[in-house]
């Protein structure tokens, strides 16, 4: 177990940003914290990275207590912050060189490490340009490179693709997967993008108002509450018979169409169609984490986001 928290909490005055959280992350996992803005993701990560002191509760990172052994924790981790934090007035390479010094990377391997991570994120050509000439995506890549350069046991990524366009986002995903595999690093990332959590994570904790409301692999999360959605057009369907199939979770008729939620469509679709008899039309789509979020919180993640965004704007003043 590389990350463990016990009733970890953080309060800002009356507001409880992280509420008595219990978490375990295993070695080598890519673990996601999915939740709307203001859910407490950054606060949680900041505590695990020893930037913030918890109000109560305990946590261990790489076996070290985050409060009493903070400098050992710091040596074990790499961080990519939500806000970009590379130095604009230095070149990419200079940023990395500074990181090498700060994180005590052995002198004999420094140059080699810099070249290694630069090529991992495809920044070799721009390495000697000032960072203030980089695009948003390039800065993010540089930060990823920096975060991984001292070969940390655990890499924290706080909203790694926030504010990037969809194409750049997919590139960054590739880099993250690549890094996690090549370096066999445990990754904990936060995001409020459903696709991101789904693409990258082995397990996801859905968090809302500082609490974990659900935790499992993306597939299991969806299976448990949403399953796959099957839309069927058929004259006079036998609703009773369909509802009684054990893999059918929910069946509704609306506007002459049949909407079913079923477990693992790839396995059961064939069987389902033998029970329905002749149909005019069928469409299958996977359940989404959005369905899962909706199920547990009663809100769409987008609505929650607007709400959290508002609070964040108020709090920033």
């Amino acid at each position, binding site marked *: 177990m590389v990350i463990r928290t016990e009733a970890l909490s953080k309060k800002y005055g009356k507001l409880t940003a992280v509420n008595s959280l219990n978490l375990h992350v295993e070695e080598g996992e890519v673990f996601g914290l999915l939740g709307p803005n203001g859910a407490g993701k950054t606060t949680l990560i900041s505590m695990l990275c020893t930037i913030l002191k918890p109000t109560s509760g305990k946590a261990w990172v790489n076996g070290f207590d985050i409060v009493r052994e903070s400098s050992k924790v710091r040596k074990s981790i790499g961080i990519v912050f939500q806000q970009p934090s590379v130095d604009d007035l230095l070149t990419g390479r200079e940023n990395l060189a500074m990181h090498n010094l*700060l994180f005590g990377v052995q002198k004999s391997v420094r140059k080699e490490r810099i070249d290694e991570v630069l090529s991992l994120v495809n920044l070799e050509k721009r390495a000697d340009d000032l960072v203030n000439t980089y695009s948003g995506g390039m800065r993010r890549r540089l930060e990823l490179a920096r975060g991984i350069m001292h070969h940390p046991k655990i890499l924290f990524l706080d909203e790694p693709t926030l504010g990037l366009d969809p194409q750049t986002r997919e590139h960054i995903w590739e880099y993250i997967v690549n890094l996690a595999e090549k370096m066999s690093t445990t990754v904990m990332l936060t995001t409020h993008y459903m696709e991101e959590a789904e693409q990258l994570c082995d397990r996801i904790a859905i968090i809302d108002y500082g609490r974990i409301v659900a935790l499992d692999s993306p597939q299991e999360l969806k299976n448990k509450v949403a399953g796959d959605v099957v839309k069927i057009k058929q004259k006079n369907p036998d609703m009773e018979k369909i509802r009684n199939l054990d893999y059918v979770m929910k069946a509704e008729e609306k506007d002459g169409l049949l909407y079913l939620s079923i477990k693992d469509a790839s396995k059961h679709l064939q069987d389902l169609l033998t029970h329905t008899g002749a149909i005019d039309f069928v469409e299958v789509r996977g359940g989404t984490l959005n369905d899962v979020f909706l199920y547990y919180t009663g809100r769409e993640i987008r609505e929650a986001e607007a709400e959290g965004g508002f609070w964040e704007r108020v709090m920033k003043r």
Partner: protein
Amino acid sequence: MSEIMNELEGIYAVWLREVKIYMREKERLGSSVISPILWIFVVGSGIGSFANKIEGYPYQIFVYPGIAAMTVLFASMFYGVYIIWDRKLDFLKEVLVAPVSRASVFAGKMLGGATDAMVQAVFVLILSVFIKAPLTPLIIIEAFFMLFLISIAMVSVGLVIGANLKSPEGFSLVINFVTWPMFFFSGALFPLSTLSSGLKPLIIIDPLFYGVDALHGIILGINYFPIYIDVAVMLFFTVVAMGLGVLSFRRM
């Protein structure tokens, strides 16, 4: 042993970054060169044209050590504002989460600021040639070390203020309020004898007074206190300011 090495490299990393940025920001470098020229030639000769000789020196020469101290004072104090910008722009976060003690981060920033101020100090020492100040190589070395001591003291004060404030505007307000009185009561611009006795106690509590007094002693041979007292007081003040600086950085 490797722990110490780590801290030293941390200090070096922070210092190196400061120096690189200083070299790259042309305005900073430019103002470093221009302000001493203005002070020595415009103020020195301007006031000098209607002032009498002081202790046997023309005013432009008498005021020279004071201007050297002042150049270092302002460069050092105002350097504290960069810590606010660094925090605002999130450049500092990377350093604050590194496995390096805050004392080392402070030391790196302090040395960075002192380097910045000492570039100006060296420039002022070079300018002495043009006003025919009585400098020998030994005097130059002694003056350099005294200016360096003033610099690390004042950079520390600036960093304490910068680390405890959030806005650059607030910083300039506070720093002006601290720097100008410190400058006026330091005896940099006029001899002590011209001051009314009611103001004398203010001078005694002004740390910069001891710095300027030492420089007067080193360059012109006119002291109020013996130089070892000047140096001792400055050292004490520097240690206190550095201590406060480390504490402020720990809370950041």
